[in-house]
């Protein structure tokens, strides 16, 4: 067990963990952040997506030690971010989820993408979401929600 200092959602926190532990288990287990979901533990489904220095990153494989000194943002942190809220509200307005298990990962991936590209085409949005699976078939609503968030015009930091 090692002490590791992490910066999560703007707060500095120290966790005692095996440094090989994939980040998601530390976020959920040590920090109680249940937003990132465990889906495949193989970086294939995107349910565990968080932001690392603003980049959408799957948290289910890479060891926590890799993320020391980086800015980690989970869906809980995005709930305090203006663009993150805009995307969340667009998902609510369009009922863009069924079971909702993939939703935090989708919102996180989409928000990171919109921060870089404030006026993407639908094809570009689809491509950005290729990392994330949804099994209920809410895809069209998700795409429409992201387009709605773009229209809301609150993005572009």
């Amino acid at each position: 067990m090692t002490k590791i200092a992490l910066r999560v959602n703007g707060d500095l926190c120290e966790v005692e963990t095996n440094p090989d532990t994939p980040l998601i288990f530390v976020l959920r287990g040590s920090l109680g952040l249940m937003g990132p979901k465990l889906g495949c533990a193989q970086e294939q489904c995107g349910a565990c997506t968080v932001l690392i220095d603003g980049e959408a990153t799957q948290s289910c494989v890479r060891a926590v030690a890799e993320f020391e000194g980086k800015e980690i943002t989970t869906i809980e942190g995005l709930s305090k971010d203006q663009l993150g809220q805009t995307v969340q509200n667009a998902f609510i307005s369009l009922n863009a989820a069924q079971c909702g298990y993939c939703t935090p990962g989708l919102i996180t991936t989409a928000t990171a993408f919109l921060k870089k590209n404030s006026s993407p085409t639908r094809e570009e949005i689809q491509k950005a979401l290729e990392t994330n699976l949804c099994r209920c078939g809410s895809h069209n609503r998700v795409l429409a929600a992201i387009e709605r968030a773009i229209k809301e015009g609150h993005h572009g930091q």
Partner: protein
Amino acid sequence: MANNSSLSTTPGLDQWIQFRENGRLSVANGKVDIGQRISTAVALIAAEELDLDPARIDIQTPVTGVAPDEGITSGSNSMEESGNAVRHAAATARRHLLSLAASTLDTSPDMLEVDDGLVVARTTNRSVTYWDLMPTGSSFGIEVDESAPIKPASEHKFVGKFTPARGMEDLVSGHAHFIQDLTLPNMLHARPVRPPHYHSRLLGLDESITNRLSSEGITIVQDGSFLAVAASDEYSAVRAAERLFNAATWDTSIGLAEGDMAKRLLDEPRQSLEVVDGKPTDNPPPALHASPEDAALTLTAKYDRPYHMHGSVGPSAAMAIYENRKLTIWSHSQGIYLLRAAMADGLEMDPEDIVIKHAPGAGCYGHNGADDAATDAALVAKKIPGRPILLKWTRDNEHAWEPYGPAMTMVLRGSVDQAGKVIDWSHETYSDTHMNRPRAGANRAGPGRLLPLNYLSAPLPKPVASPNMGRHAGIHRNLDPLYKFPQTRLIKNLVRSMPLRTSSLRTLGAYANVFAIESFMNELAHGVGDDPIEFRLRHLDDPRAIAVLKAAGDRLSTRNKGKSIGHGIAFAQYKNNKTYAAVGIELEVTDAAEINLLYAGAAADAGQVVDPDGLSAQLEGGIIQAASWTLYEEVTHNSAGITSRDWDTYPILRFGNVPEVETIIINRPSDPFLGAGEATAGPTAAAIANAVFDATGIRVRRLPLTPDRIKAAALDD
């Protein structure tokens, strides 16, 4: 005895509706919300009959012993069973409350108006609230009366209007919503350790490894070939499960049967039953007679569907605590009472000593690993009394051990006369069972269907499947076409000796049967040079079927077709008594024989619409999931086990190939509401295959429609 099956089981009004503190109303039902928004719809129905703001209503999460027992949340039955039960309950409550209010306000019930629970006497303006009439803790003490007046649709304020789905705020903000997120003090994390495949049995464990695991504080649970680990930290449990698997020696001498599953379905022994009016009969199955002499065209075709998996994005999980000889379990099972009965039998406990609380999982789409995971957790909890056990399956567990939707083969023959009318129709369907949920049956069938119990030192054998004789049940769901054919021969063939574990996957047999029927209708139409929609209309006399087919066809025809673009359409009424749906597809087939989905438009009639956006979401989700099955999915295996073990080896549809999706809903406010969750899947499959034919002239009869299959079909033609 009530007409509504849920009310027959649970007649007391108090079990459905209770007034609570702070102006809240609690509604209990026994159908679980699995993302299909049954709780949103039920709340709207109760709010409407009681004239209450839906925001005042809390839908209770089902718990055994408390919730009405409404069986399984399946078969697109929830609106008809639970929706109608709650409607009658709310209407009974309203009549009762107005009678109480009338005596309180010295007037007659017909002189009262209700606005959000405030009952006002029209003449005197005196008022009383529902909560004054029913203080917290008081009870109605009456039974639900199905003859209590129901509000006419013309007066609806909530039903049929857009409403936000319940719980969206929690979903978008990542709150602990799912069973996988449950946290209790002193909790242990557990993982099962499965054998390499179904028939493997544990020979031994390397003690140097197990001793080491124990010294690290890992608890190993073993009973026969059932293995699991528990640890205080989740990643330690993950690692321990991997290490324990490596410590195990397995007898794998009996492998899984290999080969072409479509061929096997025709070659293996089968039990054949004639299906008449949607129901299997004991009649000797009639032989296929010669095709009619006056036929202008006779075609025969065979269609194949592989094993498909539910593929929940969140692997199955359960929480269990065993304390004072009682088990408390949190499960995402779709049938908590059936699970309790099966588990009590399997674990030799009194059902009264087991409480199962529903907790949401990821979308399940049928009988996935939920019930098995609950049993895994119970077995671990029994070995570690007093500690909450949160057991989760891995992705590998989920892919390799969930009960799949069975592989199916459909053999059709049809004859058309000079006038373009079908005069003879034969459809034989071959499949393993779709009915493997843990429900009671001969030879302890219930517990025998709980996977972990098959691997104990005193194992419960897997029950032998018996043919489901219900109307439009498993294999023969939608085998009986809605078309008016003068002569049909419909045969269901239960093939038991198939190698993979199977059970209920969304639509059961309907997806494959409709794929076959609706592909074949296009083949026959093409054979006689007819338009596929006109050809269908000639055989339909149900105006609601005709309306959805025309609506989807008209919408698709407004779209321009470019080069390599194909249009296809298909239709079905789910179980011939639920939602009518026609799906139009536009797609492109590339030179590499890849399919790009461009557009999917469904026209549907689900009777009276309660939650229009929720209904649309179900139709849309059915299209997308079925498109994924149709284009990409096939569970593969060899003698050493399942080879579809993750999202690379079992790919599903991703965002890049999502078509534009549109729904046209035909609302029929004066008709009963109909379940819609499974209506679009079958039509979607056939519409895609028909569109591929339109684009390329290639008829692909074997799913999935991968480039290899399309190329192979081109060579066959």
